[in-house]
Every structure is written in structure tokens, then in C-alpha cells.
């Protein structure tokens, strides 16, 4: 530990003994807190709870797929007699579960739970700021997220079922209660919940952007920012650009549903009558949705990649390879991600010429992604790898990111997409590249910054068990899906046995479900480790991973303002690990350059 580190530490010992406690009541400390560290924890816990719900749902509908239309007690218990008469899941409830599973995992767990947690925790701490630019807005942002979560959960109890039109809620299915039960009150609640969610996300993102631009400590130039911050920063920018478009789509859909407008609907004959809608286009909705939807993939993924960049460098005891190339890739991905949305719509009926354009931009985005993967691998090369659980999850992320990313070459090619679009091939692809990868990033972040959040360590052996079983099961679930997808099996099918064509896929489906159940069960190991360690974990030292970034120079105790004394000043980039000429294999950012020390990177 450095001299300066000790100094800060010593100073806080005097300060906080009598400084902060009397100001906070329970309510201002734990509930309506404006402290970014507490808000981060609130995001995390809410995200974890939503994650439990989302994963549970996937297990339920996976059971239906493996043993179609069989009766299960667990269905009776969890779904009730209405949704699962005699313990057999109803076909529209299958769709409802898939829809809410997708929505929860993408937005509530991997957008709010991941980005909300770590942007809040790390942006002020790593750039050397006392808090977010606006602590109050930050608090509002969390509470809006909380309200939207509650509404989404309430929608599960609607009599006719929650939203069931897929997480993409394409109209007319999502607009017409005659078309599916879930498009009544369930869909209304979905839309309300998402509108609030978007407001929350925008407030959060604006805060992140302003904070990163304005509140960096002395010496923290943009090219000295840890890659985590770069990732959170750009993610927030993408969010600000694209979420409003989803909001507008949702609003127009609300108009169509409730006020009789025809933005997305035209020429509909349903339940024996002609509806009045005329002149709208569902394809317009698809454009609006995917204008957010694709960037959303990167909103989910970039923070995870930022987190792993930091963790891989720290645990390799090596600088991240190609720091500038990594930033350039993030920028390139951010830019390109806004002009590739059409690859979800190659066969939507839009002009095939547009398909060509989107194929081109889509395959372009493979390039910065490839650069990132290669840079991670090179960072490991000749490192001194400390295989902590966070590191394992980061390596796991690179693995699933490659496996899932490669099939993107097929889906991004308009020609090849024709026959695999909307099949299980797609399900395999996006779960690996976005779902599992981002989830690994989230786990990595939790294991790594747990000491920073709670002042205690998580049990590493439970962490290892958690990782290895999860790693095997994740491949076990999603790898076989490529094959059933290439057999032509469409997604969002309640059962694959209604006609004989797919009868030979049944044993694969059973295997997938087994892996899913085992994988989900082992998340209990994580949950136990997490909650147990909050209260009983081993006390953490200030900088357990011997890391360079500023968050490890601040005391763990609850304290508004992060550092008891002066904010540390920054003299170097965050990746001086194993730099020749230093005694320790890490040199924190707040250590001044030695006399004659040279900067060895560009």
C-alpha cells in the first residue's frame, strides 16, 4: 500500500468517528438515500429479486417444452388453477411467461440491475467525485425503477394474464385484446411499467453523463479513465439517444390501444368483425422498437465488457492490452449500434435493398467486437493470473461472447437470416452473446466490488462452485439450441409436438431443460453466499485485489462524500500493473510519477 493511500486512510479514522452518524435517520440512510453507494445497493438488490423471478419463469416454461402438456405440482402452486388448469400450463400463459421473462431479464436485470448498480457505485468512486452530479435525481431514478418493477410484477396477477406478445410487443397482437388475453389489462400495465422504467433510465443516464464530464478529479483526463467508466459513459449516451424512441413507440401504441388512432394498425378483421383501423403499419413499430432494441443489446453488454476489462487487468496483474483500441471499439460499437437495427427486420417486408445496407453495417460491427475479444486474450498472455471468482466470470464472459458473437455473422447476413430468423438458433445466439455474457459480467462485478459495497468478502470456494457449474450449464442449455434451430424449430412455440415434424427434437429439449434446472438451482449457492456474506463475510481489507483505481482508496464505512479528507488527485492511468521499476506489482492512480519515471503506454 502506498504512502498516499495510508494518508487518506489515516485521516478518515479521525474524521468519521464523530462526523456522519448523527445526520442520518434510517429512512434517509437506507430508503430515500441520495448517496450513490446506497442507491447502487438498492439497484442491485432489486435487480437480484427481479432476476430470481425471471429465471424461475424460464424454468417453468422450459419444463413445459421438455414435457409438453404434462401436469406438474409446481405449476399448480406457482401459476394457480387459472393459468395452469389441473397443473397443465395454458398455451397463452406459456407466451406470457416467455414475454415477461424476456422483459425482466433484458430491462430489469441487465439494464437496471447491472448498469444501474455499477454505474452508480463506480462512476463517482473511480473518477474521484463526492457523489453523482445530482443525488436527488439519482434517488428519483431508483424509485421510478422500483415502481416500474412493482407494476411489472403486479401485471402477473391480472386475470386474463400478463402481456403475452413477446418482449418485442409487436402490434397488432399487443394492441388487440381479442387477439390474445394478455393484450388487455396485462399489456396496459406492461406499457405503463416500461414508460416509467424509461423515465428512470433517462434520469440515471443523464446523471452519469454529466458526472463523468464534469466531476472528474484533478488529473483524471479522459484518457486516464478506467475502461469501466468509458463503458458506463458511452452506455448512458446510447441510452439517452435510443430510449426516447422506445418511449414514443410505447406512447403511440397506447394511443392505438386506448384512443382509437391507427399508427400501427390497418385493415384488421378479427373475432368476426372489421375494425376501424386504417393506414397504420406494424412495420413502423418494428423500426421504432429496434431503433432502441439493438442499442439495448449494447446497453446491456458494454457495462459488462467494461467491468471485465477492469477485472481482467487487475487479476492478470497486467495493463489491459490496447487501452486506446478498447476505447475506440466502444465508440465504434456505440456509433454502429444505432445504424444496424434493420437486421431484426430482414424479412419483415421492408425493401430488400435496405436489407443489403443493414447487412453491411451489421457485419461492420463485428470488427470492433472482434478487436475487443482479441485484446482480452492478449491481456491474459504472460500475465500472472489471479483466478478469483470475478476473474473466472470475466474469462467466462469472453468465452460466451465469442461463441455467441460468432453466430451473429450468420444472423447478420440477410441471406442466411431467411431460414434461421425467429428459430431457436436466434435464441441460442442472443442468450450467449447478450444474456449469459452480461450476466457473467454482473456476477464478476458483484464478486469483485462486494468488498467495496459491504466491507466484507464473499466466500471464494462457493464462488468457484457457482462459476463452474454455471459455466457448464450455460453451454449445456444454449449450445444444443443451435441444432434444433437449424432443424427449423420456431421459437415461441408452446409445444413442439403438435405435429410430427419435430418429434425427433424432444430428447434435446429434455437435456436442455435438465441443464437449465441444474444451472438455476446452483444460483442458490450464489444467493446464499451473497446474503450470508453481507452480514457474516470475512472483513475486507481496503484494497483486497491490490487494484489501481480510486475506489479502493476510499474507506468502506457509510459516509457521504466518499473520501473523508481531500479528494485524491490522479497522476497516471489506471493500468500500471507490474510496471518495471516499482516494488509492488500495482501502482494506484493517486501515486505520483517517480522522478524520471516514463509513461510506457500510449
Amino acid at each position, binding site marked *: 500500500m502506498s504512502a498516499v493511500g495510508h494518508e487518506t486512510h489515516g485521516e478518515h479514522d479521525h474524521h468519521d468517528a464523530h462526523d456522519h452518524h448523527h445526520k442520518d435517520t434510517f429512512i434517509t440512510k437506507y430508503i430515500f438515500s441520495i448517496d450513490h453507494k446506497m442507491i447502487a445497493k438498492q439497484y442491485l438488490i432489486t435487480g437480484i429479486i427481479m432476476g430470481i423471478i425471471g429465471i424461475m419463469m424460464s424454468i417453468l416454461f422450459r419444463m413445459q417444452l421438455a414435457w409438453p402438456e404434462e401436469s406438474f405440482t409446481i405449476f399448480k402452486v406457482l401459476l394457480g388453477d387459472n393459468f395452469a388448469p389441473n397443473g397443465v400450463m395454458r398455451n397463452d400463459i406459456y407466451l406470457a411467461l416467455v414475454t415477461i421473462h424476456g422483459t425482466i431479464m433484458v430491462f430489469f436485470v441487465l439494464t437496471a440491475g447491472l448498469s444501474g448498480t455499477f454505474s452508480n457505485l463506480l462512476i463517482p468512486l473511480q473518477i474521484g467525485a463526492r457523489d453523482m452530479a445530482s443525488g436527488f435525481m439519482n434517488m428519483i431514478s431508483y424509485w421510478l425503477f422500483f415502481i416500474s418493477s412493482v407494476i411489472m410484477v403486479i401485471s402477473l396477477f391480472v386475470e386474463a394474464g400478463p402481456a403475452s406478445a413477446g418482449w418485442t410487443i409487436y402490434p397488432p397482437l399487443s394492441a388487440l385484446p381479442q387477439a390474445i388475453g394478455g393484450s388487455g389489462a396485462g399489456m396496459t400495465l406492461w406499457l405503463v411499467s416500461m414508460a416509467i422504467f424509461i423515465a428512470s433510465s433517462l434520469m440515471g443516464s443523464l446523471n452519469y453523463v454529466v458526472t463523468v464530464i464534469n466531476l472528474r478529479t484533478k488529473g483524471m483526463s479522459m484518457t486516464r479513465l478506467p475502461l469501466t467508466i468509458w463503458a458506463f459513459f458511452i452506455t448512458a449516451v446510447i441510452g439517452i439517444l435510443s430510449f426516447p424512441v422506445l418511449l414514443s413507440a410505447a406512447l403511440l401504441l397506447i394511443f392505438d390501444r386506448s384512443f382509437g388512432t391507427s399508427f400501427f394498425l390497418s385493415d384488421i378483421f378479427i373475432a368476426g368483425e372489421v375494425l376501424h383501423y386504417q393506414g397504420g403499419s406494424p412495420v413502423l413499430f418494428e423500426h421504432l422498437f429496434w431503433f432502441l432494441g439493438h442499442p439495448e443489446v449494447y446497453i446491456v453488454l458494454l457495462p459488462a465488457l467494461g467491468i471485465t476489462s477492469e477485472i481482467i487487468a487487475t487479476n492478470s496483474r*497486467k495493463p489491459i492490452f490496447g487501452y486506446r483500441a478498447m476505447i475506440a471499439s466502444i465508440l465504434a460499437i456505440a456509433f454502429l449500434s444505432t445504424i444496424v437495427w434493420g437486421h431484426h427486420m430482414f424479412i419483415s417486408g421492408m425493401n430488400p435493398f435496405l436489407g443489403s445496407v443493414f447487412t453491411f453495417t451489421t457485419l461492420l460491427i463485428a470488427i470492433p467486437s472482434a478487436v475487443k475479444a*482479441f485484446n482480452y486474450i492478449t491481456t491474459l498472455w504472460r500475465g500472472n*493470473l489471479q483466478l478469483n471468482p470475478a476473474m473466472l466470470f470475466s474469462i467466462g464472459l469472453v468465452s460466451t461472447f465469442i461463441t455467441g458473437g460468432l453466430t451473429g*455473422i450468420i444472423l447478420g447476413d440477410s441471406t442466411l437470416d431467411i431460414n434461421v430468423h425467429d428459430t431457436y438458433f436466434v435464441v441460442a445466439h442472443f442468450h450467449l452473446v447478450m444474456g449469459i455474457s452480461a450476466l457473467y459480467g454482473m456476477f464478476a462485478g458483484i464478486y469483485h466490488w462486494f468488498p467495496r459495497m459491504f466491507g466484507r468478502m464473499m466466500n471464494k470456494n462457493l464462488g468457484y462452485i457457482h462459476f463452474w457449474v454455471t459455466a457448464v450449464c450455460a453451454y449445456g442449455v444454449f449450445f444444443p439450441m443451435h441444432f434444433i434451430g437449424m432443424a*427449423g424449430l420456431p421459437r415461441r412455440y408452446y409445444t413442439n409436438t403438435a405435429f410430427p415434424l419435430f418429434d425427433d427434437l424432444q430428447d434435446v429439449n429434455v437435456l436442455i431443460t435438465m441443464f437449465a434446472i441444474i444451472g438455476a438451482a446452483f444460483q442458490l449457492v450464489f444467493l446464499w453466499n451473497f446474503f450470508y456474506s453481507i452480514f457474516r463475510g470475512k472483513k475486507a481489507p481496503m484494497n483486497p485485489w491490490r487494484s489501481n483505481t480510486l475506489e479502493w482508496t476510499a474507506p468502506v464505512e457509510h459516509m457521504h462524500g466518499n473520501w473523508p479528507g481531500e479528494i485524491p488527485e490522479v497522476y497516471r492511468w489506471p493500468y500500471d500493473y507490474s510496471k518495471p521499476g516499482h516494488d509492488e506489482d500495482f501502482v494506484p492512480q493517486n501515486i505520483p510519477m517517480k522522478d524520471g519515471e516514463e509513461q510506457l503506454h500510449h
Partner: protein
Amino acid sequence: MTSLLIIAVLVLLGIAIWQLTKIFHLTQLGATVREENTEVANDRDNNVNGYLMFGFLGFIYIFTIYSMVKWGHLVLGTPASEHGPQYDNLMAISMWLIFIVQTITQFLLHYFAFKYRGKKDNTAYYYADNDKLEFIWTIIPVVVLAGLILYGLYAWTNIMFIDDDKEEALYVEVYAKQFGWEVRYAGEDGVLGKANIRYIEGINTMGVDMSDPNAQDDITATELHLPKGKKVIFKFRSQDVLHSAYFPHFRAQMNVVPGMVTQFGFTPTITTDEMRLDPAIMDKVSNINNIRSKKSADLIAKGGNALDPYTFDYLLLCNKICGASHYNMQMKVVVDNEADFNKWLSEKKTLGVAVKESQAGDEPHEVEVPMADPANNIDQDTIKATVDSTAVAQNR
């Protein structure tokens, strides 16, 4: 059966936990004696997990090979359309490329994780950047992807761009509704009559505008018959929500959008009868029939009915979530040689005649318009209704 599987899962789970705790415990025993457990990885952890990383590489490889051997035959086989082989070729090239890159990169990743696992006295090599390397792995994907894009776009243009004026083709409308399909042939004039859902009435379930002269000779059906070797241009319409017309065996798919006509064209090259003699299809069919007869035995033991044996048919599947019975929205597709096809078509009544007869006929009101009932669980009834209404149209 189910309970057995669940028990198997639980047992496996138990064994897995037990084994893993044992492994990790063993690795800790020595360590706890000598140094305090700080929950930070020590050399033993690095060692164990380094080896596991290497083992995981093995797992990925073996699982990949196992999948290909065990499930490779599930993948769609001989394509039945003219552009199909080109599609499959592009797919094969991309797959090989992916396969190679996957093998190499996963090897490097996991091998490095194993090889450079930390040891107390080791020091990492300070290596921050190298423009040359960075350039190499930017340019390689650029070149490879450029090749793929060019081939892909060439194929795409061939498949997707349809010139209505030039093509000597068969025009077929495929009409989607919750939860079934109907088809309409253009008839002798080769032009589909105009249509809008507002014209739906009686047996005119697709809303054809009967005042349009081009509509008179149109012919409707509930099974899609196609002639071998002739370009077929499909015009898709939906009456309610989005659907997607997915012909997996023909490598063809297009969304069906209410309020809009979408299109796709392909040339069938293998008749249904020929396809039934395809070796891969024969294997698949006998495999499926084995599975079905086992299932039937189970069903009969429980007092149910046996399943019908399976014979191969091309199918048109719905592949865009469209409601409760989305999973069963399909239609049989029959490819005949041209003479048989023409014969089949000529035996059908034209729509003009059918409509007139039904208007003059005694019980036109008996014709049911298929309805979607959201409360209805398994919409077998709806599907039957669809079939019935058009069956009436053909038979009267």
C-alpha cells in the same frame, strides 16, 4: 417417467455439489494451516482453477463434437428450392469459418488462463499495446467479412428482388389468420384479383373484391400445391395480426403483415414424392416413427389412442408469435410435377363460380367465418372452422 427424471436431476445435483465442495475443500486444507484464508485466490486456487480452465476447454471441444455427431442429422437436409443450394453453400462456408475461429480463440483464451495461472513469485509482463497487432486483427476480420458480405449480398439480390413485369411465374396468394392459412391461385389470367378484408363475406373468406374482373378466375384452397420447376411468386396477406410464412425446407420465409402485401419467390425443385425418397429424409422419418411408436405404446398403456405414423410432407409454419395457438398454425405443402399440379388445379372451381353458387344456393348462411376467440385455450376448434369454411367453398 417425469418423476424419474426429476429424481435423476436431484441425484446428479447432489453428486455435483458433493464433488465440488470436496475438490475445493481439499485445496484449502493445506492452505488454512499455513496462512489465514483471506478469500483472495492463492496459489492453490490459481492452480486448481487453471487446470479446470484447461478442462473446460476440453468440455467445449467434446461437447461440440458430441453435439455434431449426436444432433448433426437434425439439421435441415437437401433444400427443395432452386436458390436452396446457394443458401446452404453460404451457410456451410460461414459455419466452417465460425468453427475454425471458435476452435482457435477458445483455445487461446483457456490455454492462456491455464498457462499463466498466477504464482506468488511470478511477475506479469508489462505489455500495454502494439499497433501492429491491433492492425492485424482489425484487418483480418475486415477482409474475411468483406468476402462474406459480397457473397451474401449477391445471393440476397438473386433471391429477394422480384420483377413482377418480367417473370413468367405462378402467382399465389398466401393468406394468414389466427390460426390457419389459406391460399389463392391467380387462375387463367395469371393476375390475382384485388382484395381487402372489408370484402369478407360468406365463403369469400379472404375478402376478394368480386367486382374485379381479375378475381373471377381465382381459385382458393386450403392446401398449398406447387408445380416443380416453375417460379412461384407468393403474395402474403394477413387479416389480423403479424404472422410469418416459414417454409424451412425451401429456405424461404417472409413476414405476413396486416394492411400490407409482402412477397417472396422461389422455384421448387423436388416433388414431395421425390423428397420422401431422399435418404436423409427416410432416416428421419423412420427415426420419428420409432419415437412415435414408443410414445404410442405408452399412450395405449394409459388407455389413450395411438399416434398416427408419420409420412414426410413439406410444411408451411407460422414463425411470428401470433397468439395462443401460434405453435400449431401450419399448412401442408405439396410439390407435384407440373402436369399433376395443373390437373389438381383444374379440378377446382373458380372463385367467381363458387361465390355465385353460394349466393344462389340454399344455405349460404351456414358458412362459418372462422373466428379467433382469445379466451379459447387450445384453438383446435378454430382451426377446424377454417378448414370447414373453405371445404364448403370447394365442394359446392
